[in-house]
């Protein structure tokens, strides 16, 4: 078992710190307890695949426990429609087990490379949030290894306070060992996708508001560099799992066939400034919009093609160069559409080279105090760290979002302040109290927790 000091960052490759990294399986609880006992003074934190953009899975000067499990240890209960999965299993491995057997994960984000533990700790959401809620809303039970070495069984009914403090709790309540998640039955591994180009923001919001409920999945890809009357121009894609009779004959032979592939991997040696700049991105966004069909109904797409297009390019975060990038993800409640518009206007006016950004309409939230989703709009924009004027822009956007009653997503955050989190998450103190009851001495700690004074 390797124990060494390693410099870690999140997916955005910013703000590195060095920690003692220990890799373990969640199946060997005894070994994990030994690891906790050997934590240095600066404590420890669990890490999955490091796909959070900022610093939640880093712990400078402390320990980071990387959790790895095998998907074949997942147990599917076909009668109940659930799977009990070790927390170190990632969605990529899990889908390879589930899809051919006619099941799908309840929620998938834009990448398959997240672990079950990370999905719960960040309470991730997907394109079906308006119908199915976030990942944590689809967890029936989980087991949590606490700071004192004991294992606690949690469910929304047996220990709701600690269960919901762990959902969205960024790993700060303990190490999630396994979880039982509700599955979605599918008859094919394909999706039937409706695509339409939408010319401006007002039309987009109205279209999503009136029509989202007819689709399980809905998301809009916005061109964040479009300005003026084109502000908010986007490609709206909405989909449902396809049925066998919707498939073309060549796919209908083996309707549950599932073979996700990584086409290429970005080499480690991208030139210092990266290849993402104002010109390349403007051209890319323009092409993306132009190539999209004006309106197309019932197009059959694969799971990776619809849900995880970026996963086809390995290590795509390297494209941003050495300085890395940030993903700004905000939520504004329904009724604060003006704030959303102003955020988009400010982004476009700043000239920041932003790759396609994503707009999603959230449904109801869940009881977790630190869960990000709530009824409203969420916008996600990627920006290279080296963009001139980025600091001023982000400080301004932060105020806009918070004044509108919105918030920032901890799994993406790499720049906000303790004050911004306090304002965005009014139940923070309630979460702190639950956390303190199971970790009074502060064994669980991360760079994120230190930076944002979460505990």
């Amino acid at each position, binding site marked *: 078992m390797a124990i060494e000091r390693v410099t870690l960052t999140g997916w955005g490759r910013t703000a590195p710190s060095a920690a003692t990294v220990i890799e373990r399986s969640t199946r060997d609880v005894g070994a994990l307890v030994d690891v906790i006992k050997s934590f240095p003074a600066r404590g420890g934190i669990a890490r999955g695949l490091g796909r959070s953009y900022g*610093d939640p899975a880093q*712990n400078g000067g402390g320990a980071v426990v990387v959790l790895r499990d095998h998907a074949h240890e997942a147990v599917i209960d076909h009668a109940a429609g659930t799977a009990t999965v070790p927390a170190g299993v990632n969605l990529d491995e899990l889908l390879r087990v589930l899809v051919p057997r006619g099941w799908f994960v309840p929620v998938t984000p834009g990448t398959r490379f997240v672990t079950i533990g990370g999905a719960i700790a960040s309470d991730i959401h997907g394109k079906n949030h308006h119908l199915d809620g976030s990942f944590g809303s689809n967890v029936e039970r989980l087991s949590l290894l606490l700071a004192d070495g004991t294992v606690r069984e949690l469910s929304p009914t047996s220990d709701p306070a600690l269960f919901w403090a762990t959902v969205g709790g960024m790993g700060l309540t303990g190490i999630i060992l396994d979880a039982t998640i509700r599955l979605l039955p599918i008859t094919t591994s394909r999706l039937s996708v409706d695509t339409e180009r939408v010319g401006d923001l007002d039309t987009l919001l109205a279209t999503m508001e009136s029509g989202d409920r007819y689709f399980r999945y809905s998301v809009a890809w916005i061109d964040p560099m479009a300005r003026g009357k084109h502000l908010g121009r986007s490609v709206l894609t909405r989909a449902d799992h396809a049925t066998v009779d919707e498939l073309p004959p060549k796919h209908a032979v083996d309707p549950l066939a599932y073979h996700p592939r990584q086409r290429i991997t970005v080499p480690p040696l991208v030139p210092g400034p990266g290849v993402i700049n104002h010109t390349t991105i403007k051209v890319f966004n323009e092409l993306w919009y132009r190539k999209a069909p004006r309106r197309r109904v019932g197009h059959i797409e694969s799971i990776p093609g619809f849900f995880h297009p970026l996963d086809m390019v390995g290590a795509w975060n390297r494209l941003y160069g050495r300085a890395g990038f940030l993903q700004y993800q905000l939520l504004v409640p329904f009724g604060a559409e003006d704030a959303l518009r102003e955020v988009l206007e400010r982004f476009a006016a700043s000239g920041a080279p932003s790759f396609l950004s994503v707009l999603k309409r959230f449904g109801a939230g869940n009881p977790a105090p630190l869960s990000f989703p709530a009824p409203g709009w969420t916008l996600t924009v990627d920006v290279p760290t080296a963009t001139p004027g980025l600091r001023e822009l982000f400080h301004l956007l932060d105020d806009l979002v918070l004044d509108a009653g919105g918030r920032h997503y901890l799994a993406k955050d790499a*720049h906000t*302040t303790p004050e911004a989190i306090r304002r965005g998450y009014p139940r923070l103190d309630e979460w702190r109290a639950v956390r303190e009851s199971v970790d009074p001495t502060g064994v669980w700690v991360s760079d994120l927790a230190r930076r944002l004074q979460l505990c």
Partner: protein
Amino acid sequence: MDNALGEPQTIVLLGGTSDIGRAIVERLLSPSARTVVLAGRRPDEMRTAELERPGLTVETVAFDATDHASHEAFVRELAARHGDLDVVVLAFGVLAEQSELDDDPVRAAEMVDVNVAGAVSVGLALAAQFRRQGHGRLVVLSSVAGERVRKANFVYGATKAGLDGFAQGLGDALAGSGASVLVVRPGFVHSKMTAGKKAAPFATTPAAVADATVKALRQGRRTVWVPGILRVVFCVFRHLPGPVWRRLPLG
């Protein structure tokens, strides 16, 4: 912790009255900044008003570069009081006329004590703290004067050569620890320290040095020359034969 935008939360300035040091600190302030500590021999003489803003604590604390034995406790005390030290700017130093030092070897040795020995002992104490934290950035104000020492201020130049070598080596030693060192090599800077002295070619200002330093810090660079042209100039100077170098009219 620094955030992804390179905005530190806790900033320490060793040499709290240094014009360049204060200009760097000012540029590092953001809504994320929580604490600025100004450290120096005479904390009561340090102005804090110009750095103060809502949500930011500005403190002054006594620090004596020549009291080497106190440095480790000083750094631990800082961390105990303020948490992780994100950026520390090492800006203290003394500059005396060479003509005054020629007949005063004791004073010359005192200058070495502050500029080199003081920086080495506090630098090592900071490095240990950075290793404990797993992150942290040290900015060391060196000078082109140490790149090739000239007769007009050779004791001062020698102290900067020593400091520069130490800082570079420390940066290399910290590779992989999560911490880093940025060596800043300005040319002649118009400041309190140089008031009344004749400016050298490519003279610059504390503001320009601070701008270049903060930019280099955010780019993760290890060395920055201000202005940048001095890197080329001193590359040539380093390789000039002694008789030529001695005759150059560099003041």
